[in-house]
């Protein structure tokens, strides 16, 4: 079981809510994925609208909402957006996303740390989206975040775990859950992240943009489960060569 803040999750697959062709398909896919934590962009939420409100598809008991601050460019905007999200969605959980670069949507480490320090004081359960930077993860941990969300590769790129070496260091060092976010393009990527010991993964584009989002959601559910089981069962280390003889030490027996 995975515990973040005061919540226990039986599913280690977290999901996004963007890019789907309609709300009904989104809901069906997310239910199928087994996901219990779904992130939703504050900028897409329209509390005044009754028709086609993204939230109306996310009211199932299975889902906990994780509002995100996508669109903000600095700590000041993020803090304001966080407070607005807390009020609009009635949760103090927050995916802290500060990407001032609208092209590759890469997170700003300086502003993210600054915002995390402030928001922790205000009682938010913070899950920051960041580069796979082990030192930054430790600094955020000290600031009081509930988990860290390092990226596997650029968001929406489907390129898999390009940051693998750094993710392994983060997982080794972290005292808070590590959720690999962004870039996971295939169930095998998700399984790999789980095999190296990530606590969870967050997937959006690969499910939403697939030709069959519902089937793809299920594929991810199974991959995350398989990867976690393999991690817990302790994977055997791969070797490049068979080790039949001991050319360097066999002399000892001849002495």
């Amino acid at each position, binding site marked *: 079981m995975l515990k973040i803040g005061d919540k226990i999750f039986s599913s280690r697959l977290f999901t996004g809510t963007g*890019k789907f062709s309609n*709300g009904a398909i989104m809901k069906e896919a997310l239910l199928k994925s087994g996901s219990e934590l779904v992130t939703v962009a504050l900028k*897409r939420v*329209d509390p005044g*609208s009754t*028709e086609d409100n993204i939230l109306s598809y996310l009211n199932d008991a299975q889902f906990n909402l994780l509002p995100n601050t996508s669109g903000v460019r600095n700590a000041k905007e993020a803090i304001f957006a966080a407070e607005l999200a807390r009020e609009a969605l009635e949760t103090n959980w927050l995916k802290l996303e500060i990407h001032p670069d*609208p*092209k590759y949507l890469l997170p700003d480490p300086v502003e993210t740390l600054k915002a995390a320090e402030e928001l922790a004081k205000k009682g938010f359960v913070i899950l920051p989206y960041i580069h796979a930077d082990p030192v930054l993860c430790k600094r955020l941990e000290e600031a009081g975040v509930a988990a860290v969300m390092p990226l596997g590769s650029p968001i*929406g790129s489907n390129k898999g775990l390009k940051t693998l070496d750094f993710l392994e260091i983060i997982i080794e060092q972290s005292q808070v859950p590590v959720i690999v976010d962004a870039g996971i393009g295939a169930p095998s990527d998700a399984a790999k992240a789980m095999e190296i010991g990530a606590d969870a993964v967050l997937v959006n584009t690969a499910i939403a*943009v697939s030709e069959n989002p519902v089937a793809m959601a299920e594929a991810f559910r199974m991959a995350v489960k398989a990867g976690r089981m393999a991690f817990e069962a302790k994977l055997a280390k791969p070797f490049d060569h068979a080790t039949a003889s001991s050319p360097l030490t066999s002399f000892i027996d001849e002495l």
Partner: protein
Amino acid sequence: MSFLEVFKTYRWDQVKNDIHRKTFEDVERALYKSHRNLQDFMALISPAAAPYLEQMAQQSHQLTQKRFGKTIQMYIPMYLSNECQNICTYCGFSLDNKIPRRTLSEKEILSEIGHIKGMGYDHILLVTGEANKTVGVDYFKKALKLITPEFSHVALEVQPLDQHEYEALIDHGLNTVLVYQETYHEEDYKKHHPKGKKSNFNYRIETPDRLGKAGIHKIGLGVLFGLEDWRTDSFFTALHLQYLEKKYWQTKYSISFPRLRPHTGGLTPKVEMTDRELVQLICAYRIFNEEVELSLSTRESHKFRDNVIKLGITSMSAGSKTNPGGYANAPDSLEQFEIDDQRSPAEITAMLRRQGYEPVWKDWDKVFTVLSF
């Protein structure tokens, strides 16, 4: 270095020649690599790319879905004024066109807002001619005060302004500015803009630089197809885009594709751009730049719009009026240009859903804009 200085290092004829000399091999190289440069863009918009249109469309479709998902953002223009001190040979609002002039009063703006909100819109584009005395920064501030509380995303398509003027409007909740160069062919630009402040080519071409310095969230670029060779003009637009992305890296960009449409006292296009060529260009932009927003207005036909939403377009309007007061106050007054696709937002929504796309009405929140400065 401002874009004007970059621009001065290129020669129109040389660029045009380079584009026309691109070969099938150049096109194939551009199609099969993962990051494309301006040379690749040239190949993709060249005549040599014509036989590769289907392949380009398939790539564009995939790249667009990867980045933007199965969604189309919806916006609508609100014309605030048709007063104009410029003569532009192709425009219905041109000073020498004897049409009734109108600038919306605060009361009229409010009734237009009511009508537009009733159509379901939350992203709005404000449009005027250029009449600095009556429709200048003070007027825009007043209009924004009425409009920004009602809409999540406010864009402006008006005369180019100074940096400090943009800063003031951003403080009033402005998110995006569209400023089309019309043509990057300097001599031709002067022919089409003989009178008024708009005749200053350099001031216009440096407008995106001033916007970038002012810290605007999004800048829209484009040229008016029909004035000059569309391929050469599009190369310069792409050059401009690439320059801006590197320099003002916190700003988002969009491209529009206005083709010259008939209007009151109109100009016949000097250079025709066929439907096939417009599709080629849309796909070329997407393959060149996976992140740029591509927008298509109601200038284009019903059938064309239905088909290109899959090929790279990320935002569109519906139910638009191009006359000030056209929604609630003066539905019968003269339009800037003829609307081709007359369908209502509800009809466009139904069409998008049939094709497996979600119309997105809100994809911004005013808190991001108001707080930035």
